[in-house]
Structures are given as structure tokens and as C-alpha cells.
């Protein structure tokens, strides 16, 4: 094929590749959302994922000048590329699972930085995970058909790795730059630091999670009970944290059983909370169930430890038929 024919074919195929790239982004994002629920991919992914078509010049260069391919047009797998950027190294696996579990394509891992690091442990260089996903069968996307076998390259990196690759891409790996040993070593030093920084980032997240863990566990448990008994969707706000902090010492292992037993004894409470929840955010916090139960068991102590204003606690006393100002 001549260069002109090459570009002609590419021009024809471009819409299909574009659609394929978008399809890949949508699919992986959807799977990711399910995996990290109730978090959302919008926040989890640090840079919005988008698909990028290979530029004409760079395509021609790669096909005809830089490497020798038997069938350049088809062998070049990054005609469309997608990039997912996460915060920590240990998040990459989540994206990988989303990629490999999809039935719309065959995925093959093209590059794996962990493997490369194992093979060359003292080298500090570009790090990322690359996949090539090929369409499994002719797939309809909108009014286009993606041909079976159409490839898409997926790069998965941490935001720090991304910073490194952006830097080196624009500098020492630019074609006209003749990278000196000093430049290469400086870049390597920065990558070593990036790896160390990632480890520290992961440690911070782990240490915070140890401290926050039990409270979060309590909220998760209460979320389950809330959803089960009330017909209203809970809505976590900062108040939840305040309430949990105030009363978590009262909630032991069997908090779910205790609350369910309390609701069974006083079924009207479920209705009351549901009604109040429609008007007030406070009653959409899962821990409000814990508060109701504790007011019933220990009104005086619960009133003492209430972290918000008395006015907000009074309706709970009224529902349970207890005078607020006495005792």
C-alpha cells in the first residue's frame, strides 16, 4: 500500500474506530461503577477517560519508517487508544478486572510494568499496564458496525506514572532529542521516587482506613438495615459521621440484631422514620436507626451524647413517647 492509499483506508475506517474506542470506554466505566459501588467512577478515575485516534503523521511514521510490520495497517494496534488513570497502584487491578471480564472483546495484555520490573528490578522506566482488546464479533454501535477483530489499545496507569509518561513523552523521548545518559538517569531517578511515593500514598490510605474502618463498617451495616426496612433511599451526609462517632461505643457486634428486634417490637417507628425522612435529611442517615434504639434503651445517656442540637433530638423522644426534659 502506498502512503496515500494507507491514509485513504484510514479515513474510511476512522468513524468505526472512534465508535469502538467510545464503546470500550463506556463498557469499562460501567463495569468499574458496579465494582466500586457506592463510589462512582467519575470520582475514582482521576482523569476523564477518553478515546484518542492516532494522528495521521504518527500513524504513517510508525507504519513505514520506524518499525517493520508484515501488515502495518492491521498490525498497528493503537489506531485508537484509551487511557484510564487511577490514584494508587493497587487500584489498577480494578480496571484490569473490568477489561478482562467483558465479553464484547478478547483482551490480551500487551505490557505489564510489574512483570517488567521483576525482569529488570534495578531499572526505573516507563510504567503502565497495556491491553489490546479486539472486537469479538461484528458489533453494532449506534448505526455503525465494528468489524470483528478491530483492536483498541487500553493504557492503565496511576496518576504519578501518567505524569512521568507525559514528561518523558514531551522531552527525552521526542524524536529530535538525543537523550544523554544524564537525562536518562535523571528521569530514572524521578521514576524511582514515583514508585516510592506511590507506596507512601498506599500506606497513608491504609492507615487512615484502619482508623476509620470500624465506623465505616457500622455505617455500612446500618445502611443495610435502613434499606431493608424503610422504603426511603438513605443519603449519607456529614451528620452520619458525627452521629456514628458519638454512639459507636454503644453499637456492638450484634447491633443489627438489636435494631431489628427493636423495630419488630415497635413497628410504628419504621413508618415514623420514613415519613420524617421525606422532610428531613437527618432522618435519611442510616445511623438514625441506632439513635432511635438507644433513646428507647437509655434515654438519658443518649441525650447527653447527642452531637447535634436538642431540637433535632426531640422528635425522636416524642415518637417514642418519652418526655424530653425530665430525668
Amino acid at each position: 500500500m502506498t502512503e496515500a492509499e494507507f491514509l485513504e483506508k484510514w479515513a474510511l475506517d476512522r468513524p468505526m474506530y472512534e465508535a469502538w474506542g467510545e464503546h470500550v470506554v463506556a463498557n469499562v466505566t460501567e463495569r468499574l461503577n458496579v465494582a466500586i459501588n457506592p463510589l462512582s467512577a467519575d470520582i475514582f478515575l482521576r482523569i476523564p477517560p477518553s478515546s484518542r485516534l492516532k494522528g495521521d503523521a504518527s500513524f504513517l511514521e510508525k507504519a513505514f519508517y520506524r518499525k517493520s510490520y508484515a501488515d502495518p495497517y492491521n498490525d498497528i494496534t493503537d489506531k485508537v487508544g484509551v487511557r484510564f488513570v487511577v490514584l494508587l497502584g493497587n487500584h489498577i487491578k480494578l480496571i484490569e478486572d473490568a477489561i478482562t471480564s467483558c465479553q464484547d472483546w478478547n483482551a490480551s495484555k500487551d505490557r505489564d510494568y510489574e512483570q517488567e520490573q521483576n525482569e529488570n528490578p534495578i531499572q526505573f522506566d516507563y510504567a503502565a499496564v497495556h491491553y489490546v482488546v479486539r472486537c469479538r464479533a461484528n458489533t453494532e454501535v449506534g448505526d455503525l458496525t465494528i468489524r470483528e477483530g478491530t483492536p483498541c489499545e487500553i493504557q492503565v496507569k496511576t496518576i504519578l506514572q501518567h505524569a512521568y509518561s507525559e514528561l518523558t513523552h514531551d522531552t527525552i523521548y521526542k524524536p529530535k532529542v538525543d537523550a544523554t545518559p544524564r537525562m536518562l538517569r535523571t528521569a530514572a531517578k524521578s521514576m524511582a521516587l514515583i514508585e516510592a511515593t506511590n507506596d507512601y500514598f498506599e500506606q497513608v490510605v491504609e492507615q487512615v482506613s484502619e482508623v476509620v474502618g470500624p465506623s465505616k463498617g457500622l455505617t455500612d451495616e446500618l445502611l443495610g438495615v435502613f434499606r431493608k426496612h424503610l422504603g426511603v433511599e438513605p443519603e449519607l451526609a456529614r451528620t452520619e459521621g458525627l452521629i456514628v462517632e458519638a454512639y459507636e461505643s454503644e453499637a456492638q457486634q450484634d447491633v443489627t440484631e438489636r435494631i431489628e428486634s427493636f423495630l419488630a417490637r415497635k413497628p410504628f417507628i419504621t413508618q415514623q422514620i420514613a415519613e420524617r425522612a421525606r422532610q428531613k435529611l437527618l432522618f435519611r442517615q442510616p445511623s438514625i436507626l441506632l439513635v432511635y434504639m438507644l433513646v428507647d434503651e437509655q434515654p438519658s445517656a443518649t441525650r447527653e451524647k447527642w452531637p447535634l442540637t436538642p431540637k433535632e433530638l426531640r422528635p425522636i423522644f416524642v415518637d417514642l413517647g418519652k418526655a424530653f426534659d425530665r430525668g
Partner: protein
Amino acid sequence: MFFENLTVNRVIIHEVYQRLDDRRPVDPTYGTQLLNLTADAMDFFRERIINAMGSQSQSMEMDILAPTDPACALEIASELRSADDRNFIDTSRRFADRLTAAQTSRNLPGGIVVVFDGRAGNPGRSIVGVIKAETHQGFRHTDQLQVEYLRDLFLGPQTKLYKIGIFSYSGRDPAPELPNGWQATVYDTHMTRSNRDGAAQYFYESFLGCTLPANGARLTKMFFDSTKEFINKLDVAPEQKTELLTGLYTYLKIDRSPTVELAAFSEQYLAQEFKDDYQNFMVRQDFPTNAVPKDISDIESSLRQRRLRFNRNIQLTAPPDAFQDLIVVETIEGEAGEDGVAPEWTRITIRDRVQDQS
């Protein structure tokens, strides 16, 4: 009667007046329509009722005088329970009439009579309630920070300005002969303060047709015995127990309130950490969570003397007030025995010299 799960259905108000100088009654002014309260207003109304009638409140379950006379308050309540809206409005006036008749004393002020029905308790029971609320004055501010002087506010936070009587029906169908099937709970701060003049009785007796329950002596004794048991079981130093027991004796013997109430005792004498445990303990003994009439006739002899008992028949007895004023009890560490363990001894200081020996 527990007032959890309180819902209020219909509400209407009338106004009653103080008697004239020559003791003639003044006819009430009647409301003509059911009230239409906003959600916030209804929440406020329910809160006032619960603060007065809920558990840990000063309300008291009372006996309904039987046989009932045809014009009595319970009769009115019974009719209201099954009345449609029109009849509710008309029949509720009879409460205002009856209250006017009952307020024979010239110095009893007028006020607003609130009549309402609804449900309370778990399982739910029908309730019919009547509130007499004296009006009070207050200021109101507008958005422009101007001020209005209002003279006809009622059901404000001052609890002595209102009295409430609620009749609750146990739900049997067909309805048995009155007063069977009904219970009465009354809130009247005059009942719990130390004055016992006739003015306190007009509301619960002449107006509502109720009487102090007969189980005062039994319940007071139960209060005394159970609270003593609770205090003795507490995991605190013996001195603290002594102090708490002193509190109990004071509350029963010296305090002039005509009622005995868990919340009142707890508020005055128990530290925060014990309040809930005390409440739960007494509830398990089936002691009411609101007020009961105080009657110490069954425990008079026990109240006459405090007693500390030791081994080998050593005893120290004293009347409660002398105990409080002249005796100090302390726990001290005694001399270690052969096993090296120091036993617990007691140091008793009596602020007096020996008057007589035998």
C-alpha cells in the same frame, strides 16, 4: 399507658372564663370549627403532650370514679370517640361547660380548653384528651425587628400553666359498661407540688371525675424497696451508697411533694451514669414510669431509722435526718492479715460525744 406512637386526629378549642365577683359562672365561648394545624404546629402540639404525659413525665394514672354519672367527663369522652366531625364539634362543648361548672373558686383563672382525639401506644389505643391551658403574654418580633405584644399565647413552655386529662380506650367491641375499658392519665403540676388545697383537686376530681389511685401505699413501698435494692447493687464505694440511701430517705420522708416519681428522684440524686440503668431496673420491676401518689404508711417504720449493720451484731441506727447531719461513714484500709491482704474497714465519725451507755 405508654404514649409512644401518638397521633392526633381532630382538635378544637373553646374558651372558659373566671367566675364573676358574685361567684356566678360565665358562659364559655365555643369554637365552631376543627383546627387545621400545619405539620410543624402538630409536631409542637404532640411534643407538649408527650412532655406532659410520656414516660418520665409528671403525669399520673388515676382511677375513674364509678359508677359514672351521665354527665361525667368519661361519658363525654366516650361519645367523642365514636362521633363524626359535626358531633365532635358539638359534643366537645360539653367539656367547656363542665369545666366552667367545676371551677367554683373565684380565683381559678379562665383559659383555653383544647379537646382532641387520636391514637397512642403500641398496640394503638383510641384516646380522647382535654387540655386546660391558661393564657400568657409574650413578645413577637417581625422581620423588620419591630415588636408585637401578644396576650393570648397558650401551651408555652411554662408547665404549670396547663393541665391535661387523657382517657384511653382498650378497644373492646362491643363497648362494655363505663368505666370499664377506659383508663385515665392526668397531668397537673399542682398535684406534684407541695400544696394540697382544694384548688388542686378541681381539675382531676370535679372536672374529670377521677380520683387518686388506691395503690399509693403499695407503690410507694415498692419504690422504696426496689430503689434500695438498686442502690445496694451498684458497683460503687460504700460511702456513695450511704449517700444515695440518704437521698432516698430524704426524698420519701422530707420532700413535701405528694407524688413519687422515678424521674424526679433520678434528676435530684443520681449521677448521669446511673440514670438509665435505674429507669430500666425499675421498669423491669413493673414500676410506673410516671408519677404515683406518695403514701408512706406502709414504710413508716422503716423510714424511722437508718441502719448500718456489721459482723458480730454490731449495729448503728439513727433517724434519717440525724444520720445525714451528724454521721460520717468512710471506708478505710485495715491492717493487713497474715496473708498480706489489707481488709476493708469502716470509720464512723459521730459529731457528738457519748450521751449514754448501757
